[in-house]
């Protein structure tokens, strides 16, 4: 390990870094100082102000530029003679195929989302290149080593489903501030400014549901010639007043709950509209969309302040007005984005007014933005520590020092005196559909389920394939690709709307389907089993995939549910901030009461990667047995702590 002894292995190595964010900046610097001379780095992102507190290779003047390119320039200043090749691109681009990955000795991930991590994992397996994974949130972090056939792959352990909330909690019975945020963002914001064709549960179902919702539909339309202030107040009174009155009429709902209070704009706003106006002039140049702000026009400055109900009402109306006056072209196409100031203001105000109605404490814009945008906590120190640990593992991989590979947890509270806790890597999970050839099994109603359901719910959502190809024997049922001719496209489109048993090559009980992703070079087999009935509550998808363990998802008390989606993504996974993902370290150890109380932050908002340690046994130097709770593993595993 001595600093000079590792040099030959390091100097000749060609490494690929994926991600130039929080961990990426630290990693690139540490690789350069450690003597690495040929580093390739991929990142599709550009630099933002909130990156500057930890992504130390970037300056204010770099805001808006490519992270990968600026990071390269910054590191060359102190190590000018090494080769750094930046790619301002998405790692999922087809340029970065298996052949591209094969040129590297090791791949180092500093990524922010499950989707990209799974993709890189598959390419590394296909190219047979070792992968070092990492993630941080707050003071917690981890580094893991994945070598094909020797250690588990990134997907050997199930990843948790994103947190979702039952529809009725969001629409009718919120009890936490996050419920109000989800309502404001996923329902109200989407209803007013998003795609009008999207299904939306905004209106509560009254006892005579059908008729009132039809009538309510028109409420959200901005009528021609309607004064914009008038429109805003109409929306306000409808969603915070009328809808609550309707909900209150369902006596059954409130038997064991506090009754909400309807709120009308006239309580806070004089009917004379001219007084409440913010000053539009304060918004500066009318064309600069990013500077349009209700807070600015109302003269409110501190995002840490918790606004009164009246202030929230003013922000709500002002933000709504500004959307229509300054950003009208975008209406109908907007999705919530945590970096869209006006959208954050609107959602904060709407969530707070709703919270006030339901007796839930109000929150500041700063806090609301964090919840709505799923912003993950991030500090420089943890990223630096994790980067150091990645390089230590990378050097072991390059020296083929297999017996010393470790996965390391960076903890907030010491566990058996350790803040940095190394653990021997796990063996591959033999039933992992990604790194082993074990077929999966799918229970599905082949007479009712359409190929489209199968593609969306299984192939894309669960298997994480982006360019899938589905085969039944030698017959192609479906594929996605750029090079298809029109006839094939039409055929596949027709197939999508057919139920499985009526496909040109029928899929019935006992059929073995082969699903491939050519880019990921991943192929897996699914054994189809017909099943007539599914439990709507427990099996809302109407299909059950087994052979690989999905993480336990949040218990739903309603067959539908709403996720607090990532700020820029419509995918089911929750977007976390760059490089800020973590698996929960084994935390609940029955034998170690003093640590079992360690407070880990709620990582459920972090996409992907939460581990559930269950029955994991760790052997110490002294053969002291420790048992972890809740590890969702196929077999009990024994780990020798080194």
């Amino acid at each position, binding site marked *: 390990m*001595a600093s000079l002894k590792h040099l030959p292995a390091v100097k000749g190595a060609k490494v690929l870094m994926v991600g130039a964010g929080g961990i990426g900046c630290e990693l690139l610097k540490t690789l350069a100082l450690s003597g690495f001379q040929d580093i390739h780095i991929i990142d599709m992102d550009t630099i933002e102000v909130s990156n500057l507190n930890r992504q130390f290779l970037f300056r204010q003047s770099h805001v808006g530029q490519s992270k990968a390119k600026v990071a390269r320039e910054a*590191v060359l200043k102190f190590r000018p003679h090494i080769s750094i090749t930046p790619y301002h691109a998405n790692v999922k681009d087809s340029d970065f195929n298996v052949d591209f990955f094969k040129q590297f000795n090791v791949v180092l991930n500093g990524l922010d989302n499950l989707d990209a991590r799974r993709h890189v994992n598959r390419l590394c397996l296909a190219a047979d290149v070792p992968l070092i994974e990492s993630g941080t949130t707050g003071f917690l972090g981890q580094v893991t080593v994945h070598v094909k056939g020797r250690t588990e792959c990134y997907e050997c352990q199930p990843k948790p489903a994103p947190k979702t909330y039952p529809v009725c909690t969001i629409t009718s019975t919120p009890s936490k501030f996050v419920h109000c945020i989800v309502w404001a963002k996923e329902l109200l914001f989407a209803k007013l400014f998003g795609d009008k064709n999207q299904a939306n549960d905004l209106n509560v179902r009254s006892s005579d549901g059908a008729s009132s919702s039809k009538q309510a539909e028109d409420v959200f339309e901005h009528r021609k010639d309607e004064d914009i202030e008038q429109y805003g107040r109409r929306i306000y009174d409808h969603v915070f007043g009328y809808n609550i009155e309707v909900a209150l009429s369902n006596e059954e709902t409130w038997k064991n709950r506090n009754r909400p209070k309807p709120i009308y704009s006239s309580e806070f706003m004089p009917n004379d509209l001219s007084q409440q106006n913010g000053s539009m002039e304060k918004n500066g140049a009318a064309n600069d969309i990013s500077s349009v702000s209700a807070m600015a026009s109302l003269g409110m400055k501190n995002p840490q302040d918790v606004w009164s109900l009246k202030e929230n009402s003013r922000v709500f109306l002002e933000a709504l007005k500004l959307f229509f006056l300054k950003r009208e072209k975008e209406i109908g196409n907007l999705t919530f984005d945590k970096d869209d100031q006006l959208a954050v203001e609107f959602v904060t105000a709407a969530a707070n007014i709703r919270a006030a109605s339901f007796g839930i404490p109000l929150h500041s814009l700063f806090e609301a933005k964090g919840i709505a945008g799923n912003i993950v906590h991030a500090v420089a120190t943890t990223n630096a520590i994790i980067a150091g640990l990645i390089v230590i593992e990378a050097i072991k991989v390059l020296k083929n020092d297999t017996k010393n590979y470790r996965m390391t947890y960076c903890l907030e509270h*010491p566990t058996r005196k350790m803040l940095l806790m190394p653990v021997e890597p796990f063996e591959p999970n033999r039933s992992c559909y990604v790194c082993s050839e074990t077929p999966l099994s799918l229970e599905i109603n082949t007479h009712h389920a359409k190929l489209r359901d199968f593609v969306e719910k299984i192939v894309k959502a669960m298997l994480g394939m982006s360019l899938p190809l589905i085969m039944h024997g030698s017959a192609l049922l479906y594929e996605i690709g750029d090079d298809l001719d029109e006839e094939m496209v039409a055929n596949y489109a027709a197939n999508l709307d057919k139920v499985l048993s009526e496909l040109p090559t029928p899929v019935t009980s006992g059929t073995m389907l082969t699903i491939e992703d050519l880019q990921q070079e991943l192929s897996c087999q699914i054994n189809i089993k017909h099943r007539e009935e599914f439990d709507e509550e427990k099996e809302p998808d109407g299909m059950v995939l087994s052979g690989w363990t999905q993480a336990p998802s949040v218990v739903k008390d309603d067959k539908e549910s709403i996720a607090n989606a990532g700020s820029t993504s419509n995918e089911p996974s929750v977007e976390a901030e760059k490089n800020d993902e973590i698996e929960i370290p084994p935390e609940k150890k029955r034998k170690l009461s003093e640590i079992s109380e360690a407070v880990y932050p709620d990582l459920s908002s972090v996409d992907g990667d939460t581990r559930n340690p269950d029955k994991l046994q760790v052997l110490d130097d002294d053969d002291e047995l420790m048992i972890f709770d809740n590890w969702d593993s196929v077999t009990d595993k024994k780990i020798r702590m080194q």
Partner: protein
Amino acid sequence: MDGEELTEQETALYDRQIRVWGAGAQRRLSKAHILVCGITGTIAEFCKNIVLAGVGSLTLVDDRAVTEEALSANFLIPSDENVCAGKTLTELCRDSLKDFNPMVRVSVEKGDLSSFGAEFYSKFDVVVVSCCSFTTKKLINEKCRKLSKRVAFYTVDCRDSCGEIFVDLQHHKYSKQKREETIECELHYPSFEESISIPWKALPRKFSKLYFAMRVIERFEEVEQRKPGELSIADLPAVVKLKKELCVAQSLNESHIPNVLLERLVTDTREFPPVCPIIGGILGQEVIKAISGKGDPLKNFFFFDAMDGKGIIEDVSGKP
């Protein structure tokens, strides 16, 4: 002082970390003054971390010139000779650090550490000492302790792929979150001298080998009047002999200080680059905890060895 609000600019820049430690802690950070003595790769990492975190000021002391060794693990020194011409090590580091965060005042102080009086140290809230002798460490620690205000004192040393941090927070009051509650806590720390005077046999049976090994090296450099890190493989026999003497005197089984570990520490006295961000990261977190008064600080030694990958806290205060 908590009454003052963060500016809009501060809130935007520190957004992600305020979400970790809160606006109150951020305000305390922005009023803290840090002194760092001895520039190494680990110290460069530490300085980067606290400048990014947004401390009030950072003062650097180190009169050494830029040498190749100083460059080896330090990313604060640009390789451009035109930029470096005529500047000292600390001045170059200062310039780079200023660039990381314009809101932090970074300055250079010249002179000999041991000659600075109590008044000098009283200007700081945190003093971090690296690559200086055993005697100097004790001296500065005592000077800090004599002041009427509490000055947090740290030493940090990296050799080969090993690192050690010592912490003296004297009396430290802080709060921590336990479930929903906020709990007020208090810790008492011994000085560096008090700590290392604790008889080895009084320490727990299972104890970090690095602690003992570092004490042997420290004693060796002291006795032989070497500068920190001024060692080579040729010194190993003498170091091993000293180890035996110390083990006999302290009634410690020699197996607690393996010769292979001593060999690593005398052979490769330079920092192993990937260890710098690890030790500099832990130290940065600890200083942030000490200033903000939030979260359990480590008491009172921390050890990391890349060979086994463990980062361990040891309490050497005589009151385990």
